[in-house]
């Protein structure tokens, strides 16, 4: 909760640290040749009022007031109006972008998490040659920046070999619809960005899981279980379950990087998500869109963190019980 408040405040304060007056940008757009200076001034003031920078009496509003009105309107769901694409509202611009971003991020994170952990556990268990090859490979994947891998993949598969399309969310001559052809096109365009996300994410998860599993495999309870004749398979399940829990905590941290990476991947692939929208907005100095975009990303990140926290509480008895008393 506190984080949310801080996030909103930062979101508000930071852009305003610069000195440019956003209304100037709009005026440039709205300005038509032949406008008299009187008309210009009038329009200017209209906009100032509209954007809360000046109240009706012509006095400039204070920052504090601006802040509160910002918070108020945002919470009501009104994210404001775009500067450069005036009069389009920010929400209009972002609402089509958001699903694309989530569609890229969520499946790749979930699949990457599951696969990465399984591979990591396997490497810890099998050791030997499998591990010797696997370990450097996943270390490499983990350290490759998301967008770098994206660039490499796009170049090799998208441009050189032309196996996959290099850009866009779907074929350019198609309109979004519920047809099979559309879905097929979406999937086709999905593969490269998806693979980029998944590969890097797997790298990180696998390395972490491998270390955790190695640790768990050496614990006393594993030795004891073996001595009691418990099946190998059951013991492996123990290890995986116990190693997963700290991994979940790690997931919450890795999410921040993954989402950041996803945004950059959108730029590389021209994928129509929030990342690309942010990029365009930055180029055009479209402040409301930038602000709202960041807000949305932060909120979704916080939401995901929250879900993970709940999951951990449910799955890890150690967390659940730490408050209760012991039995003598």
């Amino acid at each position: 909760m506190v984080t949310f408040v801080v996030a909103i405040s930062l979101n508000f304060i930071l852009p305003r640290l610069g000195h440019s007056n956003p209304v100037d940008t709009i005026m440039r757009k709205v300005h038509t040749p032949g406008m008299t200076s009187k008309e210009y001034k009038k329009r200017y003031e209209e906009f100032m009022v509209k954007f809360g920078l000046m109240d009706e009496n012509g006095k400039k509003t204070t920052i504090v007031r601006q802040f509160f009105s910002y918070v108020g309107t945002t919470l009501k769901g009104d994210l404001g109006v775009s500067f450069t694409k005036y009069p389009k509202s920010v929400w209009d611009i972002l609402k089509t972008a958001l699903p694309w971003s989530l569609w890229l991020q969520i499946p790749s994170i979930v699949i990457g998490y599951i696969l990465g952990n399984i591979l990591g556990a396997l490497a810890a268990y099998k050791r030997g040659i499998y591990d010797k090859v696997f370990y450097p490979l996943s270390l490499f994947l983990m350290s490759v920046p998301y967008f770098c891998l994206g660039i490499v993949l796009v170049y090799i598969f998208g441009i050189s070999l032309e196996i996959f399309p290099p850009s866009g969310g779907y074929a350019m001559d198609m309109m979004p619809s519920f047809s099979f052809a559309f879905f097929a096109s979406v999937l086709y365009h999905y593969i490269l960005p998806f693979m980029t996300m998944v590969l890097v994410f797997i790298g990180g998860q696998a390395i972490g899981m491998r270390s955790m599993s190695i640790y768990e495999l050496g614990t006393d309870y594993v030795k004891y279980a073996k001595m009691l004749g418990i099946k190998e398979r059951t013991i492996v399940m123990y290890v995986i379950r116990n190693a997963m829990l700290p991994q979940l905590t790690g997931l919450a941290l890795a999410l921040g990087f993954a989402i950041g990476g996803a945004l950059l991947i959108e730029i590389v692939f021209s994928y129509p998500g929030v990342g690309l929208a942010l990029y365009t907005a930055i180029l055009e100095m479209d402040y409301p869109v930038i602000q709202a975009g960041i807000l949305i990303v932060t909120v979704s990140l916080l939401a995901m963190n929250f879900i993970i926290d709940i999951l951990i509480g449910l799955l890890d008895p150690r967390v659940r019980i730490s408050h209760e008393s012991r039995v003598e």
Partner: protein
Amino acid sequence: MKQFKLLLRSPWFVFGAAMFLFCIFVGVLYPMFSHTDPLLRGALPFEGPSPDHWLGTNGEGQDMFSALLFGLRSSLFVGIAAGIFATIIGTIIGIVGGYKGGWVDNVLTLVTNLFMVIPSILVLILIANSIEKRSMLLVAFIIGATTWPWTARAVSAQTSSLKNREHVSLAKLNGYGIISILCMQILPYIMSYVFMVFIIQMATGILEEAAISMMGLGPYDSVTLGQIINQAQKTEAFSNGNWWAFMPATVLITALQFSLYVVNTSMEGVFNPRLRKES
């Protein structure tokens, strides 16, 4: 020092360190490698590699090879500086919080967690967007100021486990002030850890710089690897298949990251024997 010798025995460490140091070497001694001014728009745009221009030219007719070297140097500068900032800030916060405990620690931990959850990239976008004169040093500072939480957490944990050791209590009893205790009793012991963390912070610094440069928000007073890629993208080098305009920079960024991670992993293997492989 003993540990350093152990490190040298690890092939991973040697490989990673060599790679990274080589990059630094090239970056620093860059003027010796290329005499062409990277900003000179002298040649035809988008020409492939040739004897005149080893890595061809970009969309504005600038020599890619020298741009690459220059970019390497800038990226390294920003990355390392950012790493230094982040490590210093994080270590100070971590040590103070870990040692003091109590409400000081609680507050600092809260702040740390706060910053940790908000992805640095977003804060970077916000800050970089509002400041027009973004010098390399400033960018490095901003990156450092958003990526320190990781260090703080790690250092704090180490410090709080150290603070109950005998030599610390002894120093306290002898009336040493808190600053000297922190410097003489605790810092030396966590040095190897801090160094490891510094390596990661450097890697993060380089990465973050490349990331915001990709967004078009990089330093304005030089060319960095990230900006090279960004420019390539803007001038459609991607779709035209002009690999020389962006691939080398991409590969270089990856190489820097990888070498640093390798060094870090090998250090972990030496300093944390539990993870050492059994035969």
